[in-house]
């Protein structure tokens, strides 16, 4: 499979995503937000981390108007895979492709540290080959990752198995110490109803190599490859 990595003005995880995908054998191209592409149906579209347009307004609030996002919406509607990481997750929420918002961390500080994720969902290629009892150590790096959603939508997300990951401690408990940003019910990532759009705050692309001391993030790409096939 191939991937297309979106580059908005202010995106900075584009090269890291490209690098990480390469580690698992996925070839990717970087796409500048004005060069509106048509994505291949089997292309994985990645909205990486960064501070699109500086995020001086609400994070992702400007990027959602970018010409590229119309193409992303079309791709997702046609059932194509889309993953938004960090700022990419914020953009997906702002664009209405995922429910909820990402508020300022409850600590009111930026946090760059490892988090432990428990895979939760069976409905998505991003997660269905992950072992729920095997937690992934994935770094977070954000100031606004505090996922908030209203009670009704939260109930639906959980009932429909659309919570992709939750922050847990080493024993798998949902503690506030394990939660780096104060998100509701320790949510780290969520899916749309069809499971083809994933938004997550932690950065799997930073956990991609033994040299960097962490390869846990590769499991997510491997899950996609196992589900879709690697051709």
């Amino acid at each position, binding site marked *: 499979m191939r991937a297309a990595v979106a580059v908005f*003005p*202010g995106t*900075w*995880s584009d*090269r*890291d995503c490209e*690098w*990480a995908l390469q580690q698992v054998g996925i070839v990717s191209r970087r796409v500048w937000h004005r060069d509106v592409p048509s994505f291949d149906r089997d292309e994985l579209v990645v909205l990486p*981390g*960064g*501070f699109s*347009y*500086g*995020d*001086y307004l609400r994070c992702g609030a400007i990027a959602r108007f970018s010409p590229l996002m119309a193409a992303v919406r079309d791709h997702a509607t046609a059932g194509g895979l889309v993953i938004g990481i960090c700022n990419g997750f914020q953009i997906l929420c702002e664009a209405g492709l995922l429910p909820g918002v990402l508020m300022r961390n409850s600590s009111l*500080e*930026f*946090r*760059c*540290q490892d988090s432990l994720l428990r895979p939760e969902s069976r409905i998505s290629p991003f997660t269905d080959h992950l072992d729920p009892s095997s937690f992934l150590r994935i*770094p977070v*790096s954000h*100031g606004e990752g505090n996922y908030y959603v209203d009670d009704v939508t939260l109930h639906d997300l959980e009932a429909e198995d659309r919570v992709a990951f939750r922050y847990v401690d080493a024993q798998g408990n949902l503690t506030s110490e394990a939660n780096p940003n104060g998100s509701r019910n320790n949510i780290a990532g969520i899916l749309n109803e069809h499971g083809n759009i994933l938004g997550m705050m932690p*950065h799997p*692309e*930073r956990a*991609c*190599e033994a*040299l*960097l*001391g962490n390869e846990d993030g590769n499991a997510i790409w491997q899950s996609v490859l196992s589900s879709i096939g690697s051709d």
Partner: protein
Amino acid sequence: MTVEDRELDQVAMTRAEYERLVKMIGRVPTEVELGIVGALWSEHCGYKHSRSLFHHFPTEGVDVLTKVGEENAGAVDLGDGWCAVFKMESHNHPSAIEPYQGAATGVGGILRDIFAMGMRPIALLDSLRFGPLTDATNRYLFNGVVAGIGGYGNCIGVPTVGGEVQFDESYSGNPLVNAMCVGVGRTEHLLSASAGGPGNPLVLVGADTGRDGIHGATFASVELDESADERRPAVQVVNPFLEKLLLEACVELAEGHGDWIVGLQDLGAAGLTSSTVEAAARAGTGVEIDVALVPRRERQMTAYEVMLSESQERMLVIPKREHLDDVLQLFRRWEIRADVIGAVTGDGMVTVRDGDEIVAHLPVDVPTDPPMYPPKGIRPTEIDHWQAENLEDVPDLLDPEAALLRLLADTNIASRRFIYRQYDHQVLNNTVIKPGGDAAVLRVKGSRKGVAVTTDCNARFVGLEPRVGAAIAVAEAARNVVATGARPVAVTDCLNFGNPEKVSVAYQLEQAVLGIADACRALGTPVVSGNASLYNETPDGQILPTPGIGMLGVIDDIQQVIGAKPKAGDLLFVVGATLEQDVSSLAGSQYLTSKLGRLAGRPVLDLEHEVAVQRFVLDMHKRGLLSAAHDCSDGGLAIAVSEMCLASHIGIEAGDIDLGTRMDAALFGESQSRFVLAVHSESEALQLEAQADTVDIPITLVGTMTGSRIRLGDIDVHLDEAELVYSSGLEKALAG
């Protein structure tokens, strides 16, 4: 014709300097000319009081690719066609009055220095000093500076991987904020900052020009007084988002189209003035600028204001005439404004017009020839007074455990995690050794190599004996680099001192420069870039002399890098000095300074021995004997060992070691040239000892990594207890 004192004060020019200027140009300068010359003759740009000392520094070496002072930063060869550029710069005065913006602009400025050379920035470091956190103003400054550094680095996507922070009363109200940046790239992509080729256009790219930062260079060159707050308009406001676009565009230009341009230069202190004049001076050309062509964000700005504005996120590009359109298009594709504002000339003059009116017309070599005032120092009497103190009279400690816990919680030693978790230290996927150890280590993508980077300066040692203390700063920086397995290659320095017109400060400055030169020569690490920040004084006095050292080392095979985390069962050795220490090793130590509440003693450094020890450790790395290594510095052996235990979450069994007659000196003394090394097995331990014996390096077994207690002589503390005070020390102090 007489110029008002007020006008001279604005540009921090003395009447004698004004008269020198009049004599040089044979007439009275115009207002704009006075502004241009005043800014470039300021201490901040012209190094009036420090320049005469720079010839002491060794600046050349086989790995050095740039001539010092001729480019925005120093470049060194990494081998295989790769090079690294790096520089450290101060942003002290702005941070004292507007900590967030002051620190953030410091980061933005040093980043531009690096990508102006065509290299991609891969790491930021910050060397910080504040007054004690018991004071609310110092807490405000600390929080603002940390937020500003994070705000810029996190947004632009360059990892903040290291640095240091220390607290001392002398920095109250005059914090130090020194930012360092490292970039890497292919050597053939290195760009120059010169304005060659008369007829080539001058293109200003990036932000519009506003009134922010006017006289910033001047402000950085005077003491802070009660009116400093009124200087807030001299501090600029940042836009890291725009700088991210500039960074990408400049790197793309260097990597893909270096042949389109003759020069690229950032706009820093004194803005358009210094960037154009310095670029012309490097090329031996002239420049003509029309300020009417400069895009502005405010109305009715005068030519004077446009020339001296320090609005951030601007660069000057000097394309070849025939590639002007290519260059304009490249920047515009990145959604960056780019305008032609003038041209390179062949007349050796800097000419500024405002439309049809000529407002300045000066030979380039007038502003670039500031007066020079060699410092005339007299040794401060307090140095001899401090050194005369008989440390034998200090009673030895009775409760080493309590002393250890106190030191672990001390703001100068406690874990810095509280700070670096607010900085993105991983973006770009190169950070192999993360913050919290000795040097940070970054992989160089596309090669097998890595760079180790660190900043260091123990200002207490510099205060006690400036020449020795400055040499220690270099030696310690090198030790941090060596601990990871990297070979120290070159140095950037940031000379933070008080008012050089005072004889005591002049002495500190002269001696510190000599000390840096001594150590750099001995260690084979030339000074490739740097900056001086003088006048760091408040009405309460001057700062401790703080010649910050940024060091870069190279590791040829990144897979060979090691950290300061031993494994269970490892044997720990102290090398470079005996375990037993004389009471004189307490000189300037954190332990003694906290105990007495003042400086005392005389620090010593044997450079020949230092070099031998570092060579030995690198040799042991090469043989693959080491499983971990750590520099033994602040807080002495007990802190170095505890830090290794806390990093690995493993205790140490060293209860039976012989600490000699002075327990305080053995545990907490800070004698130089020491490492703590870890090896896996008995046979490796025997090899290590044998190797040390052959080169006469003292080596002593400390103990075995095991269990969950730190047992070191009479110390017996559970790791959890040590971790609690160590990890919360800084946060507790900040809580006030």
